[in-house]
């Protein structure tokens, strides 16, 4: 979903930023297992990274805002595993496999961990890029019920295209089950005052990575 609590840029009330001295990579072993399961299941290509995000965005705001980072990953992974029929609620409740399944042909093996490189999101363009660096653009005012990567604070605002970042998988399509629909991706920069008005800190600029369908020429 789009306008959920995950879209929190510019919100107040979450308390101060606090750094933890000598923070370990994982605080508990369950955190490390949750992370590793999420990483290991990526290459099975049962879902995309944006579907994974959408599963977390679907959590109730009270849960999202109250859970820790890895708790959210756990809830998101459980939700996807259930939605895709990999596991059943009864299996999770009992902690063992109860029903047969079509096992995947190929799973992530120990030797695969030698190269944990991310996949590429580059895709062949469907047309020429409409914008170029220096172009003045306006972000659209969209409020879709489905997943999007245009944050609320940067909607309906004028900005400048700073760079073209290639043609990528379009999250608003792929997370909603409509395929890659590749779109040009731009870095669009906004003046702090444009985003926040007189309450902006002076001398700040904020950029987002904006897909072409988020933009119109100014």
């Amino acid at each position: 979903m789009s306008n959920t609590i995950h879209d929190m840029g510019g919100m107040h009330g979450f308390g101060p930023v606090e750094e933890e001295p000598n923070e370990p990579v994982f605080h508990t072993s369950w955190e490390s297992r949750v992370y590793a399961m999420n990483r290991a299941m990526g290459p099975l290509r049962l879902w995309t990274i944006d579907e994974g995000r959408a599963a977390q965005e679907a959590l109730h705001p009270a849960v999202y805002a109250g859970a820790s980072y890895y708790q959210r990953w756990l809830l998101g992974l459980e939700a996807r595993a259930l939605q895709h029929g990999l596991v059943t609620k009864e299996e999770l409740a009992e902690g063992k496999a109860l029903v047969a399944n079509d096992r995947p042909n190929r799973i992530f093996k120990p030797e695969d961990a030698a190269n944990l490189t991310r996949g590429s999101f580059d895709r062949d363009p469907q047309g020429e890029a409409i914008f170029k660096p220096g172009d003045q653009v306006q972000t659209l005012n969209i409020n879709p019920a489905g997943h999007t990567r245009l944050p609320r604070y940067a909607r309906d605002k004028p900005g400048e295209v700073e760079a073209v970042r290639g043609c990528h998988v379009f999250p608003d399509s792929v997370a909603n089950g409509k395929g890659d629909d590749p779109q040009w991706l731009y870095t669009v920069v906004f003046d702090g005052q444009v985003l926040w008005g007189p309450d902006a800190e002076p001398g700040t600029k904020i950029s987002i990575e904006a897909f072409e369908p988020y933009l119109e020429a100014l």
Partner: protein
Amino acid sequence: MTIEDDRGQDHSHGRSHEHGEMSELSDTQLRVRSLETVLAEKGYVDSAALDVIVEAYETRIGPQNGQRVIARAWADPDFRAALLDDASAAVNTMGNVSDVGSHLIAVENTPEQHNMIVCTLCSCYPWEVLGLPPTWYKSVPYRSRAVLEPRAVLSKFGVTLPEETEIRVWDSTAETRYIVLPIRPEGTDGWSEEQLASLVIRNSMIGTGLAQRPGEAKGDS
């Protein structure tokens, strides 16, 4: 839903929210074990592979990779130019760190512009060069504040920059990933890449810190 507040306890923000409380951790732990067991029995994960992934992030894939990249960019002007032109390609020429995906971008701090990275919508982070993000980076306070009041956030990290320096916040809303090339500290002429790397704290590559000066105590971040 238990109601919580600030009455004597630090329940409503900060670390207790990020890490959970003891009594509930064990619930979560059981739930994680259950999920792993079922997924492993059904052939979706190999627990030995999970061990290796965890080990990789606890040892191999961490900010030490980024430190070497930054040190080389400081030491070698050609590498610096290549890094700013195409960070993925430049980093992959270094050979002995894990390959990085196609979408790494390096942004250079200057006296005129200080760069700072955030992901307001989730927690995107260049883990191939910096490892897994620290808790504060993934936290709701950082995600909500960085785009609205970056100078205030920087001051929480002990970073105060001149008024003339523009603060540029990069919100990682797509699959591009950003690493900050901090300003090379003064007094490091002739230093080796290894010596230089020792000054590159993790936060300086996110933009919530500066590279350390020679002789400055090395913090963990």
